[in-house]
């Protein structure tokens, strides 16, 4: 017997969480594009998506975050701080890759200096992940040693029932247990079997790739240029990525008042590393693509002991020129044989 949340009770759960002061967030369909967003009722949720078009990271690291408001008078600079919206929230219907992505970035936002914009949201969010029963050809979590039902980064894991009528509930953390205690009476004990999680074929050998990337000789390999010839240098892969965390800091407003904001930025952009002098350490698109791959699969794991990739496949799915991490790592796998 396991705890089961039946789908017809979900609306009551959402209501319960909301009346307990929690913001309920989940995958929703907007005009021609899906994303995670706040909902008022369960009917707004679209739990049938393989994956929302946009990743979960924007709930923790918004594309544009106001940080400081400044106000300058003749003799004074007054600043006031923007803090992330406080209050508990529950993200219902995350995917394992998205949830893992958050856990992957935690050490980055926390090493030495703690980024409160990230952590306040992390500490107040309960992440309810639904194991995947379907995938598309771009999914690649298994290649990253994750799985459609990975628990990394999740507080609750739901396994869809075979009869499609609900989910088996696995409580993973205290925070998850606490949130589900609020709806305990809406859950039922049952023995309905869970549907099999989707089998996602392994597409590349991540360990072999890591070895190849670590070899300094390969840094100057001709491979980098060939693989990235068609890269147009947009930021769609980095902005949709659940783990890409680079940002810019910009002041908006005038000389007397305005707002300092933290905005997403991308290593794909030529200006990302451009010095004022005009010198650009990564002046070609191939150098920038190399950096992205190296950072995700060599530098980042070296520092934070995990690949900076959770295998969601969005980079490839949405790439205007059909590039992406999958193809590059598949090619590296071949090279490393």
């Amino acid at each position: 017997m396991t705890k089961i949340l039946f789908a017809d009770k979900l609306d009551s759960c959402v209501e319960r969480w909301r009346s307990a002061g929690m913001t309920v967030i989940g995958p929703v369909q907007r005009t021609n594009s899906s994303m995670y967003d706040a909902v008022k009722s369960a009917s707004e949720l679209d739990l049938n998506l393989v994956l929302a078009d946009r990743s979960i990271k924007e709930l923790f690291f918004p594309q544009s975050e106001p940080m400081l408001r400044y106000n300058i008078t003749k003799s004074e600079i007054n600043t006031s701080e923007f803090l992330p919206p406080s209050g508990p929230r529950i993200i219902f219907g995350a995917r394992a890759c998205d949830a893992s992505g958050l856990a992957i970035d935690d050490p980055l936002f926390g090493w030495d200096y703690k980024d409160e914009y990230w952590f306040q949201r992390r500490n107040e969010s309960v992440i309810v992940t639904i194991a995947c029963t379907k995938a598309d050809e771009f999914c690649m979590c298994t290649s990253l040693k994750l799985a459609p039902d990975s628990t990394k980064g999740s507080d609750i894991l739901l396994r869809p029932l075979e009869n499609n009528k609900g989910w088996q509930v696995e409580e993973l953390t205290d925070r998850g247990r606490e949130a589900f205690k609020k709806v305990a009476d809406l859950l039922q004990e049952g023995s309905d079997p869970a549907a099999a999680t989707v089998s996602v074929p392994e597409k590349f050998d991540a360990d072999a790739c890591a070895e190849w990337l670590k070899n300094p000789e390969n840094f100057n390999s001709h491979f980098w240029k060939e693989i990235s010839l068609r890269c147009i240098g947009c930021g769609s892969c980095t902005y949709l990525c659940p783990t890409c965390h680079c940002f810019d800091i910009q002041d908006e407003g005038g000389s007397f008042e305005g707002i300092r904001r933290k905005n997403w930025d991308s290593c794909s952009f030529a200006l990302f590393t451009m010095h004022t002098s005009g010198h650009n350490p990564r002046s070609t698109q191939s150098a920038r693509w190399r950096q992205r791959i190296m950072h995700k699969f060599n530098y980042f794991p070296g520092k934070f002991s995990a690949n900076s990739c959770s295998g969601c496949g969005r980079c490839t799915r949405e790439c205007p020129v059909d590039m992406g991490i999958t193809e590059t790592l598949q090619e590296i796998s071949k090279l490393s044989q």
Partner: protein
Amino acid sequence: MSEPFEPKITAFVCTYCTYAGADLAGTSRLKYAPNVRIIRLPCTGRISPMFILKALQKGADGILISGCHPGDCHFTHGNYHARRRWMVFRALLAFTGIPEERIKYSWISAAEGLKFADLINSITEDIRKLGPFDQYHKLIEETQAPASL
């Protein structure tokens, strides 16, 4: 009762004709509405559509763009170039829902102080009737607010 709405209007004018026209309006002691902030530029050809976006970004309810009559441009054809640009930009703004009535274009020569004063008065009245550009102002307010999630 709240304060009556006073429209904020930005005018981008060329220095040789419309600015001189505005000057004439002033020296002729013509009365015109104080709602216009005039920004003087060398030529209408220098009035980039970016300026219009900037004025809207800073909360303008209406915009006037004005220069020399065709044939009178100090730089011979700056205003002809400007005219084409306005035509296109105007259509673009209209298509994205920025009402045409809020952005006006005129030719005012150095001799037309009266036309300047009249135009400012009529534009101010028109915009007053339209009311504040709430839809755009809402976008501006959003930029001042904390992240929503």
